[in-house]
């Protein structure tokens, strides 16, 4: 048990910090629902970052840290599925990757080259051909898309399907970790400068305690996500995803309360994190689905 970063992990995180720097702020004239990080995606691709889980010195744990770090940014790229799930798929599948769950619109579906199709208990993989998918307008802060027609798909064995579900949970928790932290930081900044009743909002204990509780929850999500990425254990993954969805549900609500009307605007970036969190909350059966997975894997139910 050692929570210190290895030299390789530190070096990679420093490199990611440098790479992320130009993408740190929402462009001032951007007033949309989802900010696609095309420039960031090119840089990550050029630097080979999508393959870091396969580097023996780095592995899935470091990939999860990278996903967390990149989710801090207001723009979005499919990092989680590409970095954490793709290495676990049977065979070679090109990125970007997206999930279509029971036919619903999903994140990055319109730009994906590989689709993970979840239909009840069945999990399939498909390569996307032109005309299979189309963009979908959405309030969620991811570029959303939907199937226009169902592509030819390979149905996975029960064992492979279980593995894919485990790593989807790890990916969800890792991404939620960064989103939660960035959203809390954004709201904290607002509370430090916005004054009411003659003093900063952040000096009112009612809000301070609520923010502190959000912080504790978010920190817990981070540790559970990192552990699940390190072990790949289905029970760890289910716990991480459940805690992520539970925490995201509460924190997204609380942070919008902190911002008042400012949080309703597209000018303020808060929704770029909270409406990604809300998308994640809906996935893989939501909190009820994760709770069943926890009961199955941790309590043998």
């Amino acid at each position: 048990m050692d929570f210190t970063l290895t030299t390789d992990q530190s070096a990679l995180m420093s490199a990611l910090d440098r790479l992320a720097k130009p993408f740190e702020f929402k462009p001032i004239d951007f007033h949309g629902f989802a900010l696609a990080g095309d420039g960031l995606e090119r840089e990550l691709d050029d630097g080979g970052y999508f393959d870091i889980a396969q580097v023996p010195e780095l592995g899935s744990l470091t990939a999860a840290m990278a996903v967390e770090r990149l989710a801090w940014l207001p723009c979005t790229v499919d990092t989680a599925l590409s970095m954490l799930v793709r290495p676990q798929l049977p065979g070679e599948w090109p990125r970007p990757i997206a999930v279509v769950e029971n036919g619903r619109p999903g994140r990055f579906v319109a730009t994906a080259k590989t689709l993970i199709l979840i239909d009840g208990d069945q999990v399939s993989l498909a390569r996307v051909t032109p005309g299979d998918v189309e963009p979908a307008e959405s309030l969620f802060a991811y570029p959303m898309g939907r199937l226009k027609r169902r592509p030819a798909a390979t149905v996975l064995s029960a064992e492979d399907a279980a593995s894919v579900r485990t790593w989807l949970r790890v990916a969800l928790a890792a991404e939620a970790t960064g989103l939660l932290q960035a959203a809390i930081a954004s709201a904290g900044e607002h509370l430090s400068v916005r004054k009411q009743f003659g003093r900063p909002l952040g000096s009112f204990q009612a809000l301070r305690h609520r923010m502190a509780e959000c912080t504790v929850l978010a920190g817990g999500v981070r540790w559970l996500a990192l552990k699940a990425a390190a072990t790949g254990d289905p029970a760890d993954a289910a716990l991480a995803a459940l805690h992520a969805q539970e925490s995201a549900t509460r924190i997204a609500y609380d942070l919008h309360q902190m911002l008042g009307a400012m949080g309703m605007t597209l000018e303020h970036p808060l929704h770029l994190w909270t409406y990604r969190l809300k998308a994640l909350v809906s996935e893989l059966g939501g909190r009820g689905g994760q709770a069943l997975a926890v009961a199955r894997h941790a309590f043998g139910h």
Partner: protein
Amino acid sequence: MDFQWDAEQQSFRDTVRAFLAANLPADWEAQAHGPGSESQSAFSKKFCGALAEAGLLVPHWPQRWGGRDADAWTAFILAEEMWAAGEPRGGQYMNVNWIGPVLMRFGSEAQQARYIPPIARGETLWCQGFSEPEAGSDLASLRTRAEKDGGFYRISGQKIWTSYAGHADTCFLLARTAPGKTGMSVFLVPMDTPGITVRQIPSVIGEGDIHEVFFDDVRVPESALLGAEGQAWEIARAALSLERVGIPRFALASRMLRRAVERLRREGRYGHGAVEQSARAHAACEAARLYSYQIVDQRRHGTPTGPEASAARYATVMCERLVGEFVVEHLPEALSGGDPLLLAHHQRAIVAGIASGAAEIQLNLIATELLQLPREPR
């Protein structure tokens, strides 16, 4: 970063578990009647003596004081296994966690020679004289006075909510030697000193656990002063930083959650609502566990623990709450004679957010030090 136990850590855990299997009767909690009771205090002295003989009471202490200089992980693995077993060390957990280490840091040679060896042998019980009727979370407003009188101090005042006071040999007492926060001092006071009266407070948390302690012109030699006059705040901070993540409550909460779920499943009562609630509680327990490990890792590397320790404590309080609520809702008979172990845990968990300072104080620290939010005006 590595989430696996290394061979040495796993081997130490196995050793502790083997000791518990050989020395701790399975039903000991049902017989002991509460953490501060006479029966448990007596049981703990015998048990801690056996732990000491096996080299498992203070392995993390320096060799000079009976330890083997083991690292912070060893201390925490030991604490996890003890707490998961219901904490058979009773009030002596405080001795090894912080009273001994604080005496090593701040005590005179005579104080160390007098008080540390009995702790290392597992034969003494301490109580913590901090809270007062008018000084709980606001510890700096304490009123108990210690006035210099030649080579002595005369102590008068009242402490309250004092755990283990009924059977303690010594009190780690905070008293005022001058006005203000810098006027607080620590005294090591034998509990059989004339002028001390202990009155048990009947409570929902178990027999003999909390007390009022009255100091009526109690005369102690100046050698009872720990450190210097006015050093109490520094000493108390050192003590509380060890105490805050010193109790792995998640370990017992997690064990009791599993116990409750197993029974509900066996009896066909583990329905949808119970599944969801138990899963949430389990996630909270594991989050608290990893949070605490982060602090232990900081200690192992000699990094000063910061506000993350407050977050770890709060996460632990939350997991205790969720497990407690789960049992009350789905196995209420546990509180009515149906399961003495779940009852004992429930009673211990009541204090999780109160003992060693209200958890809301941790939220203040997190808001100020982690989130850097503006302070509340005073």
